[in-house]
């Protein structure tokens, strides 16, 4: 049994000392308002919109539905860890290429979700893509270009793998 007192959160490989008074907050609040990680967006605070999607111990969840105190000792990865500063990941580049962005508010959550999804399913069908992003609301695009971006990213990743195999 571990009584949580002064402790740490592990976010994107960095340990942050946290205050006792943060334990009863949502992890989303702690990430944004305490640690200054504004990439995860705050909208519905009830797990409906997916704007705050993060990876918790390699599992995709909504940060607004995680109690900060219960995230201690876990591996937290946010949108900020998707690509090194100044560069874009494959899926980020695909969003740019497909024009899958309008206001951009839903984009970080979608990117984290799609990154996780393509890890499991490298060549998804359209139906699988739509099911995978069903927990991420976008009120601008109508999803067409987002689905297109997932296809581009999926193709880019499998092409790269193909090239690597050919080289062997």
């Amino acid at each position, binding site marked *: 049994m571990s*009584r*949580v007192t002064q402790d740490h959160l592990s976010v994107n490989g960095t340990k942050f000392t946290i205050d006792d008074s943060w334990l*009863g907050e949502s992890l989303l609040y702690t990430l944004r308002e305490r640690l200054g990680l504004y990439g995860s967006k705050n909208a519905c605070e009830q797990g409906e919109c997916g704007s705050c999607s993060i990876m918790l111990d390699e*599992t995709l969840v909504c940060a*607004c539905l995680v*109690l900060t105190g*219960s995230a201690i000792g876990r591996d937290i990865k946010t949108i900020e860890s998707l690509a090194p500063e100044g560069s874009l990941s494959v899926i980020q580049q695909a969003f740019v290429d497909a024009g899958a962005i309008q206001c951009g508010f839903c984009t970080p959550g979608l990117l984290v979700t799609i990154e996780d*999804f393509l890890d499991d399913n490298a060549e998804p069908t359209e139906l699988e893509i739509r099911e995978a992003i*069903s*927990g991420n609301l976008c009120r601008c695009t109508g999803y067409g270009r987002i689905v297109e971006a997932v296809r581009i990213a999926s193709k880019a990743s499998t092409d790269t793998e193909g090239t690597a195999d050919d080289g062997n």
Partner: protein
Amino acid sequence: MEVLIASSAEEICELLGQDNSRQLLAGGTDFMVEVNYRHRSPSSVIAIDRVPELRNWHHDGDSVVIGACVTYREIERGPLATLVPALAQAARTVGSPQIRNAGTIGGNIGTASPAGDMIPVLSALGAEVSLRSSEGKRAISLDDLIVGVKQTSLVQGEFIESVRVPVLESPQEFLKVGSRSAMVISVTSLALITYPKTQSVGIGLGAVNPRPTRAWQAEEFIKGFLNWESMQVDPSGLDRFKELVSEASRPIDDHRSIAAYRRHSIGVLAQRALTRIFSERSPSV
């Protein structure tokens, strides 16, 4: 807020034994909404989602025992989906991938919402819930555990450890009505389980009653119209069957739907589920 991270079921008993007002936290998908909206701010929380006994499931002879902290995601695919297909179908309709990765079967039972998607399936399967406290363990049927809207017969200091359901290896269906295919709370839902040994069906109704509800009269009525060899149903029984299912419901008007639509749609779901399993043909030959 004090947050205690339990590492075994025994520890949960101890922590609740010290102070039975402590709030249990599993997947957080219901609890955190209340925290975020300032509807609840307990002084002490026990996070139970790392307890190995609660996170596991095992196949035990004719049944499967599912730990309270097994997630919808784990139920919707893999071996559990083969063992209890209707539960997997129901799990897949819950929320979004994010919600299904976090939400747990024990949380769905303990929250005891009439719209909980596990509830009609567990009811139709005759599920037995295992409860534990520092006083010991007891088993109770799901139908007796949930006593009203968001009310259970859990006593102070007691928690849900696991749920046991039969492995039937026969057709089962779960159907749900909502305004979208994803990320939606049930307007109505229904589970239909076939029991070839007794040549009967079990029908659990969702979101139309304050408590878990079986459509007992409809189950009894339709027996005479089913042919278990050819897996056919005599269509002349379907209208009355539908009516009896609707009559077993006691729905309300709320922001998600109106009672009349719920009463109608629960009957439609029952017929649809039945005819997906039993093809419509006169059993004359």
